[in-house]
């Protein structure tokens, strides 16, 4: 059985299906990107996984056992999208408190908190109130609070919002190192370029329904559309090519992105270029970006929904 396994989860609010029959298996060491438009049901899903709310139907298995929040929450770290810390409590004291709630002893919590504060360059703020910190700094404190107890499952909702590039890198490196140590990381965001950079798996959800899941690389393969980036010497003259083997998607100063017809292979077109006397400097496949996939999939679903609703 998978490390974290969701079976047909459902959560309905009144008429609204926040999460509808959602199933997914996730393994240790992976970094999952949970994607979806606003109001897709991401937060509801994460709240069920963290034991904050209970599914109306379905089951969760965690560490090979049915999920039992009181026991299992100690193995999880959750950083909600809406950040929250006690404003009038000192950084160190707060970290120790939150660590203790996750089952650490006071001494252990203090030691770890101090190490993390050093690592995150926050030592000068140890006894300052959180309310006096900048947004980025309190973000780092929040991250420390999430991972202080070395959870096996780390759930981060928009972890980089409000961070400058340097601090974002700091957090990103920590995410990678937790992943290497064998943690499962679930990462919820709207920022597709971050997902492409960090997540090895993605799952796309909209209107409470799972639309896509799998390895990021494979999904992009699955959605590829015979697009190639071409750089030649001399610069390609599109007029040289009559016929309809390809169309030009975009052009820049020194290259074109072309779209091949479905029955044309890249080799055929390459040979053609060579025959025309072009020197091939670059010929690379262009995979669709996640945001394209995201938009396309969501729009498709929307179309289906609206056709169903109007019918």
């Amino acid at each position: 059985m998978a490390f974290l396994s969701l079976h047909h989860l459902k959560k309905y609010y009144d008429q609204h299906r926040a999460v509808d029959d959602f199933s997914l298996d996730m393994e240790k060491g992976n970094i999952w990107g949970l994607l979806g438009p606003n109001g897709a049901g991401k937060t509801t899903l994460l709240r069920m996984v963290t034991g904050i709310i209970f599914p109306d139907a379905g089951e969760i298995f965690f560490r090979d056992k049915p999920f039992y929040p009181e026991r299992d929450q100690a193995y999880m770290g959750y950083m909600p999208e809406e950040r929250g810390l006690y404003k009038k409590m000192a950084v160190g004291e707060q970290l120790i408190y939150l660590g203790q709630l996750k089952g650490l002893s006071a001494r252990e919590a203090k030691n770890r908190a101090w190490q993390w504060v050093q690592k995150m360059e926050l030592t000068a703020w140890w006894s300052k109130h959180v309310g006096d910190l900048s947004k980025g700094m309190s973000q780092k404190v929040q991250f420390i609070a999430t991972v202080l107890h070395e959870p096996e499952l780390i759930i981060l909702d928009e972890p980089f919002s409000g961070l400058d590039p340097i601090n974002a890198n700091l957090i990103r490196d920590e995410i990678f190192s937790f992943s290497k140590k064998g943690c499962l990381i679930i990462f919820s965001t709207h920022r597709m370029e971050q997902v492409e950079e960090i997540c090895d798996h993605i799952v796309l959800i909209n209107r409470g329904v799972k639309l896509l899941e799998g390895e990021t690389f494979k999904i992009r393969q699955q959605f590829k559309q015979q697009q190639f980036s071409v750089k030649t010497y001399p610069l390609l003259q599109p007029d040289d090519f009559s016929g309809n083997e390809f169309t030009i998607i975009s052009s820049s100063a020194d290259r074109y992105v072309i779209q091949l017809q479905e029955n044309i292979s890249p080799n055929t077109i390459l040979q053609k270029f060579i025959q025309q006397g072009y020197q091939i400097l670059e010929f690379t496949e262009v995979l669709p970006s996640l945001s394209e996939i995201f938009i396309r999939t969501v729009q498709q679903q929307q179309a289906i929904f609206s056709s169903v609703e109007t019918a």
Partner: protein
Amino acid sequence: MHNTWLILKREYWTRVRKKSFIIVTLLVPFLFMGFIALEIYMAVGGAPKRLQIAVLDKSHLFDTIWKDDAQFYFQVLQHSLPDDSLAGYAATHHVDGLLFIPDTLNILHPSGVRYYSQKKLPLESYISLKGKLQDALQHIRLTQLHVNMAMVDSVKNAIQLNIEQPLTRASELQASVSVAIAMICGFLIYFILIFFGVSVMRGAMEEKVNRIAEVIVSSVKPFQLMLGKIMGIAAVGLTQFIIWIVLVLVLWGALHPLLPEMHAQVQNMQSGQTASSEQVQMLQHVSTELLRLPLLEIVICFILYFLGGYFLYASLFAAIGSVVDQDASDAQQLTFPITLPILISFLIAIRVARDPDSPLAIFTSIFPFSSPLVMVARLPYGVPWWQLAVSLILLAAAFLFTTWLAAKIYRTGILMYGKKVTLKEITRWAFRRK
């Protein structure tokens, strides 16, 4: 359980270390004792002292009345004084005032009697000085009219009403001490419920607005968070009370030795029955009456009702705090259904403090939503044990019930952002099955 304890500890420590807590906790007993000290001072030192009065009686109508008494020393001047020195006489001759009576005093229309002084004549002294002159004039008039003075006196004696004073005074005193204690207890519970209830509500609101609630409930159950907060604040309240009681006792201990001294001082200054020494006696009566009340029972029941009432209402306040989002006016609107029964119970308690055995008193002191306020007001009069038992059992049952309801509201409310919630929705959350 461990988690609830951690939350309780945090609530407790952050509140107890606040400056406002420390100031209020230390200041209140001093104010209280200061108030009592002031009362005693008024009783002892504030009474009018004996006045030394120079008398220049040119009419010589009043020669017989200048006898020293508890209020006045009279110093009758034998020689006349120039008119312009009258006003300054008191200051230059170290007396409190000069009483001037002109030689041509018309008995039928007495005017021209003057009192010269730098100091204000206390009202009490004014009345008795005027009374003396009046009496004397009356006597003269009656004599002039050939009325037999003995007859007048005998008439006066005949109409003297004999009042069994000591007894009535004592029972009156006992009643008023009981009323006072009942009122104080009722008011304290009222104050505690509102003040600490609102603290709980604010705490829940703060956690929701700061979004810390979601972080916490990913570690502990919402119920534990709510319970930890409620108990933490209860512990703060108890701490405050204990400090108050200890401080008051210590201050009382420091003040008490001064009491007999003051008493002695009063006795030295004044001979006989005067208003002031009566007041001091009164204080002593009050303290004996206090000690006659079932004090231990009152204190124990007070703490039980304080905790019971607090738990009953605090969980409801927590539920309200979890529902509102930043907007203070929403909070006010929603707390109304909770503060209203507290207020009504308080008003009933005030009535009950005077009339402890009416059917209304008995009913409301057993009904759990009013019993914490009303029962404490009945305590000084003694309450049948079965009524106490029923009342306490019902109170415990009621607070388990409200806590259970509130927990369900709290669980949903604390995670709900940016949505205005109606009372109807809240009721639905409270009574749904899951």
